[in-house]
Each structure stands twice: as structure tokens, then as C-alpha cells.
């Protein structure tokens, strides 16, 4: 472990990632939320680059490049355009009881870390301490999806969930085999496009993107 600078930067990136999810939990403006998502992409890219640089795993650079293209450029541009065309720019979402969500979030972090603790012991990667943060990000994004009512914020939660997975994969095992990564990237892209189509259809049918009524089962 003779890379104190990089190690410290990587740990910091992990903390920042966790912070972005907490920001997502508490943020009101949808526009800002996409920015936060972009920041997550940057964090992931930087993480892949640093881990790649220390470990010498070259495919991580490739992964970093794809992350940069997909999550910092393509997806945010798509989402921003979508928001623009749906005229959601200034949209604000009512977030219920932020402090309670935060406390739940903190408990989730504790839970995820204790779950990941044995893994951390076994891992041989240089950034193994971050597995817990990766899992926390996954579970917190789940909380984002649960606590949101708007379609687009739920999607952002889902994308952030995916970011958490990628982050865990990079730090636990230096990324998954390339074939899997490609498949995942493809799925994410297609999925987001599909969301876009959905948004328009939902908007046509409901006049807004609020999924409040989805909560109650409208069956029978």
C-alpha cells in the first residue's frame, strides 16, 4: 500500500459518492438532481482511473472511458433534453420528511457497512474499504426510488443504483469481466431511451409525470 495520495483520493471519492446520494435524497429540484447524477458519473470515472492507475488493471481505463462517455455525457444530455422538451425545467418535487429519510439513510449506511465488513476483510483490492460504500449507495438509491413520486426522479434513483453497482464492482474486484460490463452499459442505455419514450406516453395520458396514483392498487 505505497500509494497514500491515490488511496486517500479514492477514499474521498467514496465519501463523495455517498454524499451525492444523500443530496439526491433531500433535493427538491429535478434539474439539480440530474446535475448530481452527472457528478456521480465523474466520481465513478475518477475512481476507475485511480484504481486502475494503482492496480495496473488496464481495462479499468477502458471502463473509465465508457463511464465518462455514457454517464457524464450521453445520459445527462439525454435527460436534460428530455426535461427541456417536457418543459420540466423548473419542476419542483415535494419531498416528504427529509430528516426522517436522512436518519433512515444513515441506518442503511451502518447496515450496509456491517454487511460488507467481512467482504472487506477478504478482498485483495487496494480500495476494498469502499465495498461498504458501494452497497450503501445501492441501498440508498433504492430509498430514493421509494421516497419519490415523479417518474423522472425514480429513473434517476435507478440510474444512481446502477452507479452504486458499478462502484462496488470496481472496488471489490477491479470491475466485472468486460463482456458483462458491455451488456450492462447497453441495457442502461436502452433502458433510459425507453424511459424517455415512456415519459412522453405517460405525459400524454396523465398530463403530468406524477405517479401518486400508482401507489394505490387501482385493481378491483
Amino acid at each position, binding site marked *: 500500500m505505497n500509494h*497514500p*495520495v491515490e488511496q*486517500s483520493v479514492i*477514499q*474521498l471519492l*467514496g*465519501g463523495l459518492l*455517498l*454524499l451525492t446520494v*444523500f443530496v439526491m435524497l*433531500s433535493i427538491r429540484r429535478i434539474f439539480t438532481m440530474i446535475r448530481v447524477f452527472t457528478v456521480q458519473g465523474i466520481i465513478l470515472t475518477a475512481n476507475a482511473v485511480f484504481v486502475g492507475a494503482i492496480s495496473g488493471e488496464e481495462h479499468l481505463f477502458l471502463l473509465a472511458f465508457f463511464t465518462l462517455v455514457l454517464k457524464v455525457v450521453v445520459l445527462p444530455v439525454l435527460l436534460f433534453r428530455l426535461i427541456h422538451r417536457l418543459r420540466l425545467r423548473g419542476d419542483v418535487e415535494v419531498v416528504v420528511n*427529509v*430528516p426522517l429519510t*436522512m436518519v433512515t*439513510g*444513515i441506518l442503511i*449506511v*451502518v447496515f450496509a*457497512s456491517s454487511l460488507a465488513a467481512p467482504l472487506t476483510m477478504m478482498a485483495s483490492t487496494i480500495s476494498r*474499504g*469502499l465495498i*461498504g*460504500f458501494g452497497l450503501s449507495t445501492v441501498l440508498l438509491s433504492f430509498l430514493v426510488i421509494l421516497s419519490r413520486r415523479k417518474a423522472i426522479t425514480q429513473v434517476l434513483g435507478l440510474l444512481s443504483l446502477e452507479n452504486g453497482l458499478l462502484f462496488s464492482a470496481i472496488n471489490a474486484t477491479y470491475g466485472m469481466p468486460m463482456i458483462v460490463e458491455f451488456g450492462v452499459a447497453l441495457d442502461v442505455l436502452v433502458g433510459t431511451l425507453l424511459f424517455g419514450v415512456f415519459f412522453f406516453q405517460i405525459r400524454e395520458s396523465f398530463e403530468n409525470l406524477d405517479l401518486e396514483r400508482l401507489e394505490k392498487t387501482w385493481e378491483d
Partner: protein
Amino acid sequence: MSGGAGSVLGSFFQIVLVGVLGPLLVGWVNWVRGVLSNRKPPSVIQPFRDLFKLFRKETIRPSGTSALFGLAPYVVFSAMVVASLLIPVVSTVSGGRAMGDAIVLVGLFALARVFMALAAMDTGTPFGGMGGRREMMVGFLAEPATILVLFTTYLLSHSTMTGVTSEVVREGSVLPTPSLVFGALAYFLILLGENSRIPIDNPATHLELTMIHEAMLLEYSGRNLALMEWGSSIKLLLYLLLGISFFLPWGMSGSPGWQGDLLALAALGGKLVVAGAALALFETLMAKLRIFRVPEFMTLAFLLAILGFLSHFILEV
């Protein structure tokens, strides 16, 4: 500096230093804010002029107030002076005198706050009561976060003594660890809340519905007001000093000796200039929050503190 006499001298020097630097810092922040908002800034020593003027003015005690009202300014001011002795200013080892316990520090600040709020309520005016209540609310939310930040630093140094923590951080690597970064961020938010800065309160106005700190001082005049204002400016300075000694102690002197102290003093001056300017910049950029959003703001501070606390266990074991 060593030995009993040196220690007393050192303490005296520190009190004087803090007493002078406090108003100077407020003047500096106001000056930068003035420049940033394209106004003709007040002179940096304006706070001294204000204090000087207030000390010469007649002190009026509103009728119907109890002795508490008159007592509060002295309690507040002396709490701050005592607190200033507990924080490492130029050196982490101040002449054999063990630096104070951070928990005591929090207690001293709380003491000052309680007296301030009680005195404000003592006046019986609506504004006083409102200000006192709001101040207590902010304090109530900020204190747990403060304690958590202190615990985080404790985890690093295994001591709540400010000098020890400062020394440990100074001796350690310059690389930021996540727990310290989060702790510092949380601490910054706490600093804003505790010192009634924007976005929690605006120290520059007396806008009725939003003010917190000023609402408590409305009935004070003359020497009492001067003591209160002076105490508040020292409090801001102390928060900055504590932050510097916990999160940016590099440049402090680690061993007794005049040369080291002088160098550290210069470094301290530089840090305070930068910190004050940064504070002013932040305040210029931010808008004041509605009072209902204040709890959320302080929750954020608490959250950051907890994240720092947790990341120590998760990442740095």
C-alpha cells in the same frame, strides 16, 4: 515560554490576541463583503470604533428587567475569554499549559447562549422572546452535530483535549482523510449556524421577521451592548480558530520557542485572512434561508458529521 510565569504571560498574551483579533476579523469580513457587493466598504477597524463609542455611551436598563439582564453581558464575555484559553492559537503546546477539553468548550458556548437567550426573554418584548427561542432552536440542532465532529476528531487522536488533537493532525500526513473532510464540512455549517451568519441569520440587518441574533440584543445599549458585540466577535474568531486547529493545523508551532511562535503567528494571520474572505464570499453568494428550512440545514450538518464519524470506522480501520 516555560514555567509558571511564562505560562501566565502566555495566557495573558493569548487573551489579548483573541480580544484584538475578534473585532478585527469581523471588520475584515465586512470589508470583503462590502467590496464584493460593490459598496464602498467600511474600514477594517470599524468594529473597534463602534466598540469604543459604545463603551463611552450611557447604559440604559429597560424597566421591568431583572438582574439577569445586567449580568448576561458579563457572563457572555467572560465565557468567551475563558474559552479562548482552551483553544490552541499559535502553538499546540502552550508553555506546559495543557490545552482545554473540547467538551468544556462546547459547554462554555452553551452557557453563553443560555444567558443570552434568557436575558432576551427577560426583557419581555416579543422580539426578544422570539430571538431567544430561535437561538435555542439553532443551538439545539447544532450541538449534537458539534459533539459528533468532536467525537470524529477524538477517534483520530484518542483525546478530546484540543491541543492533543491539533498536534496529532499536524504531525499526521497532509492528506485529507474522508472523516476529516466530512467533519470539516459539517463544522463549517455549524459555524455558520452558531454564529448567526447567512444563510441562517443575517448579521447585517434588523429585519424583524427573520433576525435571530440581533433580536436578542435589541434592548441592550452602551457598555452592555459593547460587551455582547465584542463577545460575539470573539465567538466567531474562536470557532474559526478551533476549525483551523482541528482541520488545518499545519503551520502551527509544535514546540516551545519564540521563533516558532512568531512564524506560527504569521501563518495564523494568513489563514484568518483567507478564512474571513472565504466566509464573506460564501455569505455574498448565498441567500438567507427561510426559518422553516433552518432545521434542514442543521440536519445536513448533522448528517455530514455522522458520515465523517462512520467513514472513520468503515474506511480507516
